[in-house]
């Protein structure tokens, strides 16, 4: 089949390859076979309209929702950049009087394009270099992170949760494969047919599912941490199935489906948009109370772990928070309270809200850096 593709090596297909490289620099994951598919697709479409070309490339080169929607912008940008790059190449050629060979020309064009686009091939090196900082990073308080480190941290979190979820899928696999015959049930069921074994009943180890309810404080006092936590939750939700997520400051909002259905940045923007009190004051007690009245019935049972992320600074009544915590504590398997302030060696839980909630917490953890967060995840 190989020679087939060589015959397509025209100016145009070279441009498609350039487009693919351009898209890669924009974060698209494209392989050589994708390029082949794209070029292959082009020989099938009618060329009388430009949008056909765009649509064909869009459907072959984008692989997810995000890429699909951004494709048009990248596409337009590419062609305008390319035409500029080609112009500069033509000027070049006049000077050099056609001395460059075809290959060189192509290289020159790509270089020109590259400089136009500020394509820096050192991207990989950067990644490698920053990963060596990992050790330091895990001990650093979230507050002290620079923008760059923050991005790296996000990546780490993603990796961590992916690892966790993989653990789960392995469990499932083995249980599926080791189908063992349930003798007792098989005999009982077949007694009905006079004792001949006709139906075989298998059993497999029952899967223990992690059920999680996350309640995340997004008030001003938590501002520095909540972005992290939302990110963590986001990664979490995509790894596990049974997670319900709420954010609260002065009112409670269910954000599970938001996080499920959107890319992180969009989901985050929508959450802060929908929660008007984002980074406002906190009334933990009344929010927890809302949670109990509206959602407790469906969400809480003795298999559910409740994770509360808050610093415990409450502007409401202490008795309300105590009452609510009590009933959450009673109805769930475990209550874990993550308090970013607890990382401080001088910390004592004397914020009023924290104090009144304390008797109804199984585990109070700090989660102010990656190490402590890891420790909590192990407890789940």
């Amino acid at each position, binding site marked *: 089949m190989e020679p087939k593709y060589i015959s397509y090596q025209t100016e145009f297909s070279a441009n498609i390859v350039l487009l693919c490289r351009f898209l890669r620099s924009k974060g698209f*994951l494209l*392989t050589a*076979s*994708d390029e082949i*598919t794209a070029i*292959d*697709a082009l020989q*099938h*479409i*009618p060329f009388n309209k430009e*949008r*056909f070309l765009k*649509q*064909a490339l*869009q*459907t*072959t080169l*984008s*692989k*997810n*929702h995000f*890429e*699909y*929607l951004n494709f048009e912008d990248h596409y337009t940008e590419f062609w305008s950049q390319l035409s500029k790059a080609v112009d500069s190449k033509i000027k070049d050629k006049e000077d050099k009087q056609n001395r460059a060979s075809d290959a060189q020309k192509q290289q020159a064009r790509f270089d020109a394009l590259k400089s136009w686009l500020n394509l820096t091939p050192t991207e990989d090196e950067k990644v490698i270099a920053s990963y060596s900082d990992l050790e330091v990073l895990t001990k650093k308080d979230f507050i002290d992170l620079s923008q760059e480190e923050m991005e790296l941290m996000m990546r780490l979190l993603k990796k961590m949760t992916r690892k966790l979820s993989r653990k789960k*899928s392995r469990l*499932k*696999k083995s249980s*599926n494969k080791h189908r063992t015959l349930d003798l007792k049930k098989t005999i009982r069921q077949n007694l009905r047919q006079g004792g*001949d*074994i*006709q*139906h*075989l009943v298998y059993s497999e180890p029952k899967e223990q599912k992690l059920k999680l309810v996350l309640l995340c404080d997004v008030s001003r006092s938590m501002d520095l941490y909540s972005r992290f936590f939302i990110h963590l939750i986001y990664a979490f939700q*995509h790894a596990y*199935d049974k997670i319900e997520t709420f954010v609260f400051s002065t009112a409670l909002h*269910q954000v599970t*489906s938001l996080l*499920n*259905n959107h890319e992180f940045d969009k989901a985050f923007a*929508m959450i802060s*948009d*929908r929660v008007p009190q984002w980074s406002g004051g906190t009334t933990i007690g009344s929010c927890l109370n809302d949670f109990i009245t509206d959602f407790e019935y469906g969400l809480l049972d003795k298999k559910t772990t409740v994770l509360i992320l808050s610093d415990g600074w409450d502007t409401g009544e202490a008795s309300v928070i105590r009452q609510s915590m009590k009933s959450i504590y009673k109805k769930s398997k475990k209550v874990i309270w993550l308090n970013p302030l607890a990382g401080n060696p001088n910390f004592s839980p004397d914020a009023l809200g924290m104090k009144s909630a304390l008797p109804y917490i199984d585990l109070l953890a700090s989660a102010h850096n990656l190490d402590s967060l890891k420790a909590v995840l192990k407890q789940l």
Partner: protein
Amino acid sequence: MKDIKLERIQKMLQDESYISDSAIAMSVFLSMQLEKPLLIEGPAGVGKTEIAKVMAQALDTNLIRLQCYEGLDSTHALYEWNYQHQLLHLKIQEQKEKDVSKLESSIFSDKFLLKRPILQAITQDKSPVLLIDEIDRADEEFESFLLEVLSDWQVTIPEIGTIETTHKPYIILTGNRTRELSEAIRRRCLYLWIDYPDFEKELAIIKMKVPDIDKKLGEQICGFMKELRELKLEKTPGVSETIDWARALASMNMKHLDKQLIEDTLGVILKDWQDIRNTQNSLSELLDKTGVVSRII
């Protein structure tokens, strides 16, 4: 089905009363031409599954549907031996004392093979449409199993041998993004994102699906739905909800919307109690935007 024209696909979708735009037609066209699976994603109720049904109808071929769910495994997707049937067969044969090897080959024959969707799809005489619905609900394990089938187009059954396909099925995968699909499966597919339709497209869909609807009512419904989707709802209603609603109102011989009517029938389009409560609160504002004048009672 080589060398069909793009316009034909567009016409084909149109003929089967599927209102599409050119991006949808292009994706369907290319997936047929390049013999690659088409992965369709988008919010619930915008007609992802419908594409496969329409394709099957238009190509006059079978639609084989594999509905994915958590815990779906290869015995439900590929094949299974009909154990009970085999046992009975053996019992009957016992009296006749046939020789063992013959008996063995007879019980592992086509007759006792329960073909599940994927095996069905590759043993057809004419390329069928294989719809793998809500792939994101299946486990990752199943996903990788699917990769194997999608690349080789053959299934090995130890007792019989390898079954290779003669007519490659057209494959449509759909997903609601409940879970991120693996890069591996995305790489093998063409991709199409279908969003909520704009006003004109939705109106065209309603007219097609509910032909006897009052013209003004149809416009009002689409306008209202458009505004409703702008609200921040837990579960945004899709096109199928619009169609249901239009059908309901048309069957009541309504000519136009009003506040009371909307309040009474809100359950047709919204399926979440919080959404209903929120919408009821902002109904007047919504109606203003839509331009519906309430009757004065």
